[in-house]
């Protein structure tokens, strides 16, 4: 394979470039309460994609004129560290990051009971430490964990995953290489307990049947991620319980 040439993404055995099956997630690791200063925080890994999130709030709004009299405002910043990609990324927010901040905020706004905290703000900071595809969905997964860790009342956790179509096959949780040469990229975020979609973007072309199949695949992945999220949130407390109650 020459440089810049499209690699073979699905081999003879139907395995993907990193050895996964089409409906297999990357190894997932999560942790909550990783930052002491923040009211809530979380760290999430989807394979080589690594994201850290801090949540502050509900707290006073600065600047004051953004205040809403009936509910809290949610501010979200998605940012990629300059060392997150192989080539240095300028730390200034790019067009892409500003847009992702907005869609992620909208994916989370629907689950938070903002009307409980009028005149306050809830600030979410998503920092991508290492990017290998699926950073926005990993960001959403981590942000919802951090919000739960901050004790902010919400309807459900939110989990996200991207589905792609590579070499004509629908695959779950695409990584950077697959994303680069894929025909379709379809990031999805859902409230798993209610099966409500909070984020749905698509790049490329799918037939209707393929779309529904892709969505089903995403749901399957999201349910698995949700289980890990719940276990992560509970493990902090059950560990202390086991420690003292034996």
């Amino acid at each position, binding site marked *: 394979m020459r440089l810049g040439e499209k690699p073979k993404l699905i081999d003879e055995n139907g395995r993907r470039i990193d050895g996964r099956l089409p409906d297999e997630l990357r190894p997932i690791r999560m942790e909550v309460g990783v930052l002491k200063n923040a*009211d*809530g925080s979380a760290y999430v890994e989807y394979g080589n994609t690594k994201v850290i999130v801090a949540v502050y*709030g*509900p*707290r*006073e709004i600065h600047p004051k004129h953004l205040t809403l*009299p*009936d509910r809290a405002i949610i501010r979200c910043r998605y940012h990629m560290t300059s060392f997150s990609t192989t080539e240095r990324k300028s730390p200034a927010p790019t067009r892409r990051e500003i847009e992702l901040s907005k869609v992620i905020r909208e994916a989370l706004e629907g*689950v938070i*009971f903002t009307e*409980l*905290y*009028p*005149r*306050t703000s809830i600030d979410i900071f998503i920092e991508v430490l290492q990017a290998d595809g699926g950073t926005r969905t990993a960001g959403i997964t981590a942000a919802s964990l951090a919000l*739960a*860790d*901050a*004790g*902010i*009342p*919400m*309807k*459900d*956790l939110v989990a996200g995953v991207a589905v792609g179509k590579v070499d004509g096959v629908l695959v779950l949780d695409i990584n950077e290489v697959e994303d680069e040469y894929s025909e379709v990229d379809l990031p999805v975020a859902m*409230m*798993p*307990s*209610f099966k409500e979609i909070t984020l749905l973007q698509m790049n490329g072309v799918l037939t209707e049947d393929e779309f529904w199949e892709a969505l089903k695949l995403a749901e399957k992945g999201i349910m698995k991620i949700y289980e890990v*999220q*719940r276990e992560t*949130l*509970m493990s902090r*407390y*059950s560990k*202390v*319980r086991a420690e*003292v*109650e034996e």
Partner: protein
Amino acid sequence: MPIYVQNRELVTPGTLLAENEKFKLESPTVFKYSNKIYASTIGLVDISNGRINVIPLEGKYIPKVGDLVIGLIEDYGITYWIVDIKSPYKAILNVAEALNRPFNPLKENVKNIYDIGDYVLARVIAFDRTKDPILTAKQKGLGKITKGRIVEIIPSRVPRVIGRKASMITMLKNETKCQITVGLNGRIWIIGPSPELEEIAILAIKKIEYEAHTSGLTDRIRNFIRKEIEKRGLKVNEIRRKT
């Protein structure tokens, strides 16, 4: 009408608690959605006499009228102070609510009564969605805190420090011989007969905070305090005679 969880079970946001139940919902830690009841925060399930609730483990202090709080003076104006009560809302304490005599701003400065950085024991007298909390320091026992120590804990774990029918706090006071005042905003004021006993009281409160979601806590804390007292070779009974 099934209930899907057990009493004192640990739940996360979005966990289905019960279906079609005629439970009363009284806190924002639970919510109803198409006739089903769900949890909205991480916490412990509490089912008792027709109520289903989730006792939250995390979260900020939200003021309630009548709450005793410990505030930190953050700033002052001509006739008022801005007080930090560890809440998303800054509290206001007017001079009229701190002094029992007339106050003339031309002759006096509020700074000489409470300065920035002072801790004040106060009570919330007004708060709603549209207005910031208003405090009073005029009732008996309220006012500037001049001695002792302040410990901060997560506000949602304060009920554990008090305990059922104040059992925990009574035990703490008896065992450590300290005067303990609990601000509902997660600040606790301790005055002890000796620095060592204050230290032990602080350690015990921190332990309660850390183990807030476990059971059999009161006994464990009592043993912890006794062990600490013994370890330091303190003679608690003599202190009792002195005070």
